[in-house]
């Protein structure tokens, strides 16, 4: 058990180092100017001003020192550097925005699980039935229909036509519960819709696999009711692999946040990322893709470890 955990932890640390190197390399080694945001439409900033800002942000040092400063600052002081445009530190705002994004994301994951797991189980229990066909169509639809289309359709129905839900005005649940619930219904549906398709697909294939197993046949043969066979024997093993896709779901939450926060005006990471990319404020983009990637690596590590604890078969895999 401990061998498995330590191997996975070492692998994750190695991946984290690579992720940090990549986020640094994309913005400092590829032909791109970290101060591109400052030289706006045509008019470049003066050489002196540029040198001044580079000095201030530490961009005039050799690359390896910059990398050291950047990683060191994040690890030691939680300092993610500053925006090239506003010169404000990135860290504090990032924490705020990460909370907002996870606010929507966690609700979306819950909705995705609540819809996806039962849908996957139902369609696995009766393959080729009407229900199964329906779930299959929905899950292919979920990965084919882009999330912004779903979002626009919801706005057209609930905001424009019926005028029951606001298309903007995000509030946190603990700040203003009523407003928060109203403003979060549509974003949660959009995020949950995509996730439920992924969850349903994974649940279905894993349940189909389990239902073929000998112990399910044994349970049926010894005369247990079908209900009991499913609930007690099949579900417990069938749902285990579904846990492994939490990392994947989190990745989809962040990718979806970019779109959903834009449509529904939510001040989260996704919206900030798009603004920063449009203004070419690359230091913000750099900090944010690092945080997102770290979150996903850690989520994957935790799911792998918990899966290893729950299912002894894969420990030495």
């Amino acid at each position, binding site marked *: 058990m401990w061998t498995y955990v330590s191997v996975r932890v070492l692998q994750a640390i190695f991946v984290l180092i690579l992720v940090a190197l990549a986020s640094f390399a994309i913005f400092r080694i590829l032909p791109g100017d970290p101060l591109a945001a400052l030289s706006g439409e045509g008019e470049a900033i003066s050489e002196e001003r540029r040198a001044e800002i580079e000095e201030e942000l530490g961009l005039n040092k050799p690359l390896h020192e910059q990398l050291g400063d950047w990683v060191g600052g994040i690890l030691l002081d939680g300092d993610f550097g500053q925006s090239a445009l506003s010169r404000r530190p990135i860290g504090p705002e990032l924490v705020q925005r990460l909370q907002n994004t996870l606010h929507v994301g966690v609700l979306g994951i819950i909705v995705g699980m609540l819809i996806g797991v039962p849908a996957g189980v139902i369609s696995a229990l009766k393959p080729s039935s009407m229900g199964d066909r329906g779930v299959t169509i929905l899950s*292919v639809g979920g990965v084919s229909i*882009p999330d912004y289309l779903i979002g626009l359709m919801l706005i057209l129905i609930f905001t424009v036509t019926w005028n029951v839900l606001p*298309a903007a005005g995000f509030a946190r649940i603990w700040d203003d519960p009523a407003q928060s619930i109203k403003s979060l219904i549509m974003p949660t549906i959009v995020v949950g819709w995509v996730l439920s398709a992924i969850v349903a697909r994974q649940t279905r294939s894993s349940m189909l696999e389990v239902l073929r197993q000998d112990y399910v046949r044994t349970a049926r043969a010894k005369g247990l009711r079908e209900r009991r066979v499913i609930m007690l024997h099949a579900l417990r093993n069938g749902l285990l692999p579904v846990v492994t896709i939490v990392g994947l779901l989190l990745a989809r939450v962040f990718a979806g946040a*970019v779109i959903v926060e834009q449509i529904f005006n939510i001040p989260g990471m996704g919206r900030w990322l798009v603004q920063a990319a449009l203004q070419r404020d690359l230091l913000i983009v750099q900090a944010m893709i690092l945080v997102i990637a770290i979150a996903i690596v850690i989520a994957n590590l935790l799911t792998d470890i918990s899966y290893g604890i729950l299912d002894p078969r894969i420990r030495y895999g």
Partner: protein
Amino acid sequence: MAEPATTTPAAAEPGALQERGGAGDQFRVFMRRFLRVRLVKPALFILLAFAIIAIFIDVFPLPGYEEQATDENGFYLSWLSPNWDHPFGTDKIGRDTFSRVLHATRLALAVGFGASLFGAVFGLPIGIAAGYARGAVDEVLMRIMDAVLAFPGLILALALVSVLGRDIGNIIIAVGIANIPWIARIARAMALSVREQDYVLAGRTIGAGNLRIMLRYVLPNSFQPVIVQVSLGAGFAIIAEAGLSFLGLGIRPPEPTWGGLVSEGRQVIITGDGWWLWVFPGACIALLVWSLNIIGDGLRDVLDPRLRGGLEGD
């Protein structure tokens, strides 16, 4: 249902004799099974229709995508809802949405397949080298792939585009990089199993080197699962490109893109007008990606019988 190749009607035809059991026959058997997978026919039809539009767009008698429709007095015909002259309506300056949507098809397909093939061209060698070499090489290459996977596709593309700039080549690269790890994982799995086969041992005995074994034995065996992933990857790439354009980070206007058109429609959605501006390009994205997903799943059902009984029944 797997009929032996010799009983296919084609084998009885004159001239088909020398092909018996050959590549042609195999292909026919494959196609027949493939077409029998549920929904594959409509999906192929949709893909073909979009391909024809993309190739022959300049031949169609359409107004230019920047051409503004005017009435007899020279006023721009803006905000027209769908009608016979403008099946998808017109936008705020009288441009024909139908023409703009069709003109965007070529870009969507180019980025979709370009990015997907980009992923295959880099993913195949990485995966084959990792699976064939095993050990430390495998570990390092696969952890690098894990690192790429840690960045969600759309976000990696967004970051790369913000650095590299927004021409079509950069967008293909930015979207395509996210496809590399998926292809590499598949190719690695194939390489791991092929390298243990007897025919590889036989090849080695007659003096085939590592490079030759990778190119002549492992690579051809990796093609089938990779084709599945290329089809699914193209769907992802089309969604990602449309997403970039929707966010204003795709190809710069005036050239129309589906994502850009949806975004133009989104700007007026609150007024309740102009639903046609985003519904039609949006439907095109969904239809094309849906057909690529169905084709990818169908190919997997036929090429990898172990997974049959999976999604589409058969």
